[in-house]
C-alpha cells in the first residue's frame, strides 16, 4: 500500500508543517515515509507545497506526478494540482479561499471551509490542522492518537501550550468531513 500526497497553499498557511505531521504520523505507525518541500526565494509571498509519500515498502521516487491525494488550500494550488490527481484519487479543497468548483469528475473532491473553521476556533493559523484532520478522516492514513503524539514531536517545547488548540482543529476538520 502506497499513498502519495501533495499539500499546497500560500506561503504562510503551514502546508510544509501539515506535510511533516503527516509523514511523522506515517513513520510512527511503522510505515516508510518521505517528505519533500518546494523551496526557493520564489516561495516569498508566493505559493508553497510539499509531497509526502507513505508506503509499506521502501520508497522509490519521492517525486510524484500522480498523487493519490491533493490538498489545495488556495486557488493557485487548485489550478496547478487538480489535473495531477490520480484517477479515483482524493482532492481536498479549502473552500474558504477557493470559489470555484473542481473540474474533474473522475476523482473524489471534498470542499472544506478550513479557514473559516480555523477562524471560528479563534486562530486562522490552524487552517492547516483543520485540513489535516479532514484528510486523516477521509483516508485513514493514521490514527488520531498518533497525531497527538506527532504534535508533541514537531512543536518545540515552548509551543506545547498550543497542542489543545491544534487537536481541536484536527477534530473539527475530521467532523466536518464525516458529516
Amino acid at each position, binding site marked *: 500500500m502506497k499513498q502519495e500526497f501533495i499539500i499546497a497553499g500560500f506561503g504562510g498557511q503551514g502546508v510544509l508543517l501539515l506535510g*511533516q505531521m503527516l*509523514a511523522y504520523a506515517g*513513520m510512527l505507525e511503522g510505515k516508510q515515509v518521505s517528505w519533500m518541500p518546494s*523551496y526557493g*526565494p520564489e516561495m516569498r509571498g508566493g505559493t508553497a507545497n510539499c509531497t509526502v509519500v507513505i508506503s509499506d515498502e521502501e520508497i*522509490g521516487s519521492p*517525486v510524484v506526478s500522480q498523487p493519490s491525494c491533493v490538498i489545495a488550500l488556495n486557488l493557485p494550488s487548485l489550478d496547478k494540482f487538480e489535473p495531477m490527481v490520480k484517477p479515483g484519487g482524493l482532492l481536498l479543497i479549502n473552500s474558504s479561499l477557493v470559489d470555484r468548483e473542481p473540474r474533474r469528475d473522475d476523482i473524489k473532491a471534498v470542499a472544506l471551509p478550513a479557514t473559516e473553521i480555523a477562524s471560528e476556533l479563534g486562530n486562522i493559523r490552524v487552517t492547516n490542522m483543520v485540513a489535516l484532520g479532514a484528510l486523516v478522516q477521509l483516508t485513514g492514513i493514521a490514527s488520531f492518537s498518533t497525531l497527538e503524539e506527532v504534535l508533541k514531536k514537531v512543536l518545540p517545547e515552548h509551543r506545547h501550550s498550543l497542542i489543545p488548540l491544534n487537536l481541536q482543529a484536527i477534530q473539527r476538520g475530521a467532523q466536518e468531513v464525516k458529516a
Partner: protein
Amino acid sequence: MLGEKVLMKGNEAIGEAAIRAGCQLYFAYPITPQSELPQYLARRMPEEGRVFLQAESEIAAINMVYGAAGTGARVMTSSSSPGISLKQEGISYIAGAELPCVIVNIVRGGPGLGGIQPAQSDYFQATKGGGHGDYRLIVLAPASVQEMVDLTILAFDLADQYRNPVMILGDGVLGQMMEPVEFKDFEPVKIPKPWATTGRKGREKNIINSLYLDPTKLEEHNWHLQAKYREIAEKEVRYDTYRSEDAEVLVVAYGITARIARTAVDMARAQGIAAGLLRPITLFPFPTEAIAQAAEGAKALLTVELSAGQMVEDVRLAVNGKRPVYFYGRTGGMMPTPEEICREIVKVAGKEVAE
C-alpha cells in the same frame, strides 16, 4: 536520538552525522539549497564544544578546512555548485597536500547563477577534478536521508584512511527532503596522524605542503598519488543493484535519480520489460567492473542523470563498446518522473531487446 528513528532533512542529517563522526570543526558560507546544514551546525557544534565558523566566503572556508585538517582534526565544509566552483583551487591544494576532510556539495542547476533546484550537473567537476592537476576526490553519492548519514560517517573514515578529501555529492531534493533516519551507536575510527602540524614538541618539525619545485620530485609525488587512487579504486568501490540479475535493460543512475529510476524499473517490469538498476554509490572510484559485468547480461544500458550527460561517459568507458549505452537527462532543476523514465526504458527495450 540514539537508536530511535527521527524525521530529518537531508541537510540536517549530514550535520548530525558529522557530529557523530567526530567532526571537530565546520567552516562554510551560506548558499541555497544547503543552508540548513550550516544552520543546524551553528546550533549543534557549540553545544558539543566544537567549532562552527561562518567564513567570509567559500574560498576562505575551504582554506580554513585546509588549516584545520593540517592539525589532524576532523573537519568539514559544505556548499552548493557556484560555491564549490570557488573552492576548486583549495580542493586541489588539499588533495595535493594529502589532507583528509569532507566536502559536501548539494548540487543545484547551473551553469552560472543558474537556479536553486536540484541537479547532478557537477558530476564531472566532482569526479574528474574541477581544480588543476591530476588529483581525485573520493565521491560518495547518497540516495536517501539515511544514506546521507551513513555515507557522511564513512566519508570521515575514508578521508583519514587515505589522507584524501572526500566529497558527498547530493542534490537539492536530498538536502531538503525529510525521511526517517536512525543514528546507530559506533566508535569513530581513530587513525594516528603523525604528519599533523600541532607544534613540534617532542618530534621533528612537520610541514603541510603541495609545492615541489623540482619536477622529478613533483612527478614522484604524482605517481604516489596515482598509486593511492588505484588502491582506492581496488578497495572502495560501492554500488547497489535492484532487479538487475536478469535485466535486459540496465538503468544506471545515482542519487535521487536512482530512486526515481527504481520506481520506473518496477513500472517497466509491470509492463513485461526486464529492467534493472545499478546505482553507483561511489562515483569515484566508479563501479567500472560491476557495470562491465552487468552489461554482459544486458542488451542495452540506459543512463539517467539530472544533467546533459556526464556520468554516461564513465558508463560508456566501463562498457567499452560491448553494449549500446543510451542517455536520458533532465536539467536546470527539472526532475524526471518515474513514468518518464519508464517510457525511456520502453523505448530502449523496443530498440534493442525486441530484435
